[in-house]
């Protein structure tokens, strides 16, 4: 793997979306700072969470467009004329977009954990549930990225994004019903039950599987342009 060319391509994609990226990260940091300084004002906290969540969703959309756009705007021949293999191209796309997304995702995670810890209203036992749900969001975004880079089709990507959103709700409802989860949610302390740990591992496992599948599919492709 030629890390040099992969880095150049990632930087290129970041540069193309620079205004959005900078705006998202700066807003995210400011919001986090606001949450930390909120002194427990619940309204401010909830607002902060909403802002962070919105940024995250927006980032998801940018990810979709970045990969589909190379095909749509016909810049793919230019990129593929560079000394890069298709696998390296795929890596740059997935890595570049997921890196940015992870940064914002982390901000949201920290923001939510901080909110829960600060406010008396939210029991700290919620935290494992929140972590599981947020990793679910990460998983869903990885799915979008994987579909986007392999199909290069806006239609497919949007379709998967919508299914992902529905799945998120469905999974959320079913997890809440799990005895281990629902019991610990109300506690004042953070309790990591076996179920929650298993769920987390399953989610990370699925993420690895999806990314692996994306790479596999890309390596089997015979017509790139």
């Amino acid at each position, binding site marked *: 793997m030629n890390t040099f060319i992969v880095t*150049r391509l990632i930087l290129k994609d970041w540069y193309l979306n620079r205004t959005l990226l900078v705006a998202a990260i700066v807003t995210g940091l400011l919001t986090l700072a606001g949450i930390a300084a909120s002194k427990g004002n619940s309204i401010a906290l909830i607002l902060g969470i909403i802002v962070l969540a919105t940024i995250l969703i927006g980032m998801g959309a940018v990810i979709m467009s970045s990969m589909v756009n190379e095909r749509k705007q*016909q810049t793919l021949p230019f990129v593929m004329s*560079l000394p890069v293999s298709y696998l390296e191209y795929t890596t740059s796309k997935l890595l570049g977009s997921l890196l940015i997304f992870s940064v914002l995702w982390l901000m949201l995670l920290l923001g939510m954990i901080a909110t829960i810890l600060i406010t008396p209203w939210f029991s700290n036992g919620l935290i494992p549930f929140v972590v599981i749900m947020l990793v679910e969001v990460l998983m869903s975004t990885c799915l979008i990225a994987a579909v986007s880079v392999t199909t290069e089709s806006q239609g497919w990507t949007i379709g998967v994004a919508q299914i992902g959103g529905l799945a998120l709700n469905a999974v959320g409802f079913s997890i809440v019903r799990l005895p281990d989860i629902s019991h610990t949610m109300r506690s004042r302390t953070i309790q990591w039950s076996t179920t929650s740990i298993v769920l987390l591992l399953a989610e990370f496992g699925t993420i690895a599987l999806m990314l692996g599948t994306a790479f596999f599919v890309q390596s089997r492709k015979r017509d790139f342009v």
Partner: protein
Amino acid sequence: MTGVAVQFSGVSKKYPHFTLQDVDLELPTGSIMGFVGANGAGKSTTIRILMGLIHQDCGTVHVLNHTMPANQAAAKRDIGFVSEDMRLYASLTLAWHMNFVSSIYPQWDRLYAEHLLRSFDLKAERKIKGLSHGQRVKAALLLALARRPRLLVLDEPTTGLDPVGRREVLAELVAVLADEERTIFFSSQNTLDVEQISDQITFIDRGRIIDSANKETFLDRWRRLRLMLPLNTALPQLPGVIEVGGSTRLPVLTVNRFEPAMVAVCQDAGAAVQAVDAMTLEEIFIANVQSRREGVVA
């Protein structure tokens, strides 16, 4: 390593509505090959297979001694590729693209790039979306040329350019060949350009290579013989007659293996030779294609 810059051997690629069949090509280092064919004949497919962007169904492809598509990343370090459907990033400037490409290729020649900016009449600070089609083509060519690649692969490099632009581009392409280690492969519908600067010429039609030879051979071998037949005289039998046009008394024979002795043969057969016309590359191409499509094999 010199010798052969591009080699195709029995390359085929099947699509639902089109098949590229049995393509054999050999391009010696230090020469220019012009690739001529109608739309949909298979020029772009062949070029994409050459670049490793499409994987052939069978056959071998070697470019600069790299096997394609397996070694495409390594090969592309020494190849400059410009295709007609290639677009640069519209919201960014030409200067950004020049910077980007030069950061990837150590062989980027800054002075030469500046020379090309002047001779192509381009402003580096302009955004790509503000350029006309012709300027975009020249911008993409600049990015490929300034790296001084060992092999230039160009899909319709002069299509869409005005006559001045065409002249500038052809001049730069020929200048590349001043270095005999560098090679150019270009496809074009513009037979005038191909006739002017190519050393080797290959014709492709309906997915098959129908002819490939050096330019002077083409221009030497193809002729139109204008004859005048007296009454009750049969047409002289000549080898390599591709087409018989004109009228019964005044036939025009198109031959692809002309020898001066043919004139004598016609005389002996009783026909008067009124003229032996050379043919332009365009006429040669059309005659070649038509005869193949009608099933006349020469």
